[in-house]
């Protein structure tokens, strides 16, 4: 069992929201949002596996991708190893936008004036000779660039001090984010589609190495072979293309690629969903084995509840863009608190036929509401077997109801009235 008390938080996600805009009509106006991830908070301790479960379309994969900043989150904070990956607060984002706009205006102004003066001088004939003209053109371009970056920088500093925003609140730039990529990697769901069909295995595994590490070709080759050994791929396969492998082998390639840069944190986005049952166990055992040897931290996204029970230390349950319950694995499976978790767990097939016949299943009625138009109050209120009046009015807060057990449900608040009062 994972020792939570001595562990350090590696990943901290706070109120993460990822909305995808909907554009409709002739003018493609912005008419709404698909709230794929709608205010999710969780921490992942170093060395643990956090399972993320939920039915299809509940935002699990989007959540995993957003945590790795493969999407630009709408709001919320993500910290990996103490370093911010997203905007620390909305003010910082506004500061950046405004200062960028100031830079653009300044650059436009400088360019217009410079170009105007230059054209005027050319028309009057006071500047002649190719080199003089070329030099002046270069000067105008240089001044424009200086205005673009200089004005943006100065205005950002000024706004930062007046708004009380520090450097740490800014999201990393594209380049800075790129340099952080080696610490966080992802194993993708579809092992076929996620590998470039025109690259050989060595090319796929070696590309991040040549991008981020200053290895020589020889060292790179050695590292590629080392990784192939680690995931159990034959070294002779190095120059083959992805389509020449089986599904399980392809997923091993994906894992080797993710491991190439010695990441600390790996998001496994349904890594076994596309695989044969006989291969699933191999891949999961490989992931566990690698975790033990390399001290990896996983966010394991899956809809296979038995597999999550096998691999995860803690489990988060998502429903319609929100985490409804997060708890250590054993207590969650033994005694689920949220009605949705109970329904989900009761759907797990029972291997014993006799028990299967008698199993008490909690079957939910109705369909999942659209994430573009979630119900008022609790997201689950349309299907909850224990729905109460308050559920339809107030969205339950996500609270730690017992030590290390988080749940978002009105059933488990000790002081419902207080919750109502604070929410209102």
């Amino acid at each position, binding site marked *: 069992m994972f020792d939570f008390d001595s562990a350090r938080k590696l990943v901290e996600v706070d109120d993460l929201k990822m909305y995808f805009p909907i554009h409709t009509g002739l003018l493609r106006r912005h008419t709404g949002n698909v709230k794929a991830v709608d205010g999710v908070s969780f921490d992942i301790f170093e060395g643990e596996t956090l399972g993320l479960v939920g039915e299809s379309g509940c935002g699990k994969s989007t959540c995993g991708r957003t945590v790795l900043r493969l999407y630009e989150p709408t709001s919320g904070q993500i910290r990996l190893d103490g370093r911010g990956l997203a905007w620390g607060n909305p003010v910082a984002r506004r500061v950046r936008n405004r200062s960028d706009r100031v830079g653009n205006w300044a650059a436009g102004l400088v360019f217009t004036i410079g170009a105007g003066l230059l054209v005027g001088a050319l028309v009057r004939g006071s500047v002649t000779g190719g080199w003089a003209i070329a030099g002046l053109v270069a000067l105008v371009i240089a001044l424009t660039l200086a205005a673009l970056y200089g004005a943006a920088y100065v205005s950002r500093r000024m706004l930062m001090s007046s708004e009380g925003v520090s450097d740490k609140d800014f999201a990393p730039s594209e380049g800075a984010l790129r340099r952080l990529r080696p610490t966080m990697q992802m194993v*993708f769901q*579809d092992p076929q589609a*996620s*590998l*470039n*069909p025109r690259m050989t295995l060595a090319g796929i595994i070696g590309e991040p190495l040549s991008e981020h590490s200053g290895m020589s070709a020889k060292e790179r080759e050695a590292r590629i072979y080392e990784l192939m050994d680690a995931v159990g791929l034959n070294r002779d396969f190095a120059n083959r293309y992805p389509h020449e492998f089986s599904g399980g082998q392809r997923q091993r390639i994906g894992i080797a*690629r993710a491991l190439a840069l010695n990441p600390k944190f790996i998001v496994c986005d349904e890594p076994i969903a596309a695989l044969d049952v006989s291969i699933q166990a191999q891949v999961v055992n490989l992931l566990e084995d690698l975790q033990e040897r390399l001290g990896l931290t996983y966010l394991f996204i899956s809809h296979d509840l038995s597999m999550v029970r096998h691999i995860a230390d803690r489990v988060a349950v998502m429903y319609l863009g929100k985490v409804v319950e997060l708890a250590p694995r054993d207590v969650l499976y033994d005694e689920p608190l949220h009605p949705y978790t109970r329904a989900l767990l009761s759907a797990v097939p029972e291997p014993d036929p006799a028990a299967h016949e008698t199993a008490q299943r909690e079957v939910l009625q109705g369909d999942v509401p659209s994430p573009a138009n979630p119900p008022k109050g609790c997201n689950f209120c349309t299907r909850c077997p224990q729905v109460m009046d308050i559920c339809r009015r107030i969205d339950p807060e996500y609270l730690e109801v017992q030590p290390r057990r988080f749940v978002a449900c009105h059933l488990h608040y000790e002081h419902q009235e207080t919750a109502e009062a604070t929410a209102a």
Partner: protein
Amino acid sequence: MLTYTIRRLILAVPTLLFISLVIFLIVKLSPSDPTAGLPLTIPPEVREQIRQSLGVNDPVFVQYFKWLKLMVWNEPLHLIESWTGWQVGPEGPRIISYQTRSPVMDLIMQRMPQTLWVVGTSYIVGILIAVPIGVISAYRQYSIFDQVGTFISMLGFSVPTFFTGVLFIVIFAVQLGWFPSVYDTTHVVTDWDSFVVQLKQIIMPVMVLGLYNASQISRFMRASMLDNLNQDYVRTARAKGLTEKVVVLVHVLRNSMIPVVTVIALNVPSVFGGAIITEQVFKVNGIGQLLIIAIQGGDIPVVQTVSFIFAILIVLFNLLADVLYGVLDPRIRYD
């Protein structure tokens, strides 16, 4: 791959024979008379003698097999002889044009450079314009650049070249007087000034044809890029921490080029065919013009031979496109 190519080449032989027969029959069935273009003062019995000497009165199949023998045996040998200087030239006749009384192959060889020069340049220019436009349009889908690019390529697509050609002449040659309206094929580039003259006269035909080619290829490029940009492996590439430039230009572009390269290869025969109409508009005396004049004059040997050479090129470039597909896409194997 080699066995596949050889098999395809062998299979091409009956195809080409059939094509040549169909072309021959169509041309023969059309009511054209090789003596129709001759002066009216020539008496009918002389005309009949001329027809007799041309062999027009023989049965159709006799004529066809005579032509076929010359096409597949005598002419290639002559070609080899003229290229290498070896004395392999067979005794006997060659395919002779009714109009000029010179061998058809000589006519084609005279006109090939002009066509390759003008139409080939326009094809290359079209590709060079189309690929970046397609890439940017797809990468910034629905942006202003994409909308403008879509509009222009729809325009280039739907407006025929005989219209854009005349329009360009009216605007740039007649109104503005920037470029000459006629392409002078006798012009020789010797120094900078003559190069500028060459550049000026080639710009309009190249732009007219280039616009047409570019609008086609840029559509293909855009569609293919869009197809690939949403693929999972692009997300993998981003997750690897590659720069956006590498993601788009190495991962996406390389995969998107597969169908585009085949389309480009498939259209190459049309370069040899010359843009028949555009050559007429700009008075380029290339293959296209040769074909038009031959059709007008009922010059069956020229029409037949030129069309047959096109057929060979189309078959060959179809094969080349298929082979290229196999080379570019490791998932496709022909063995």
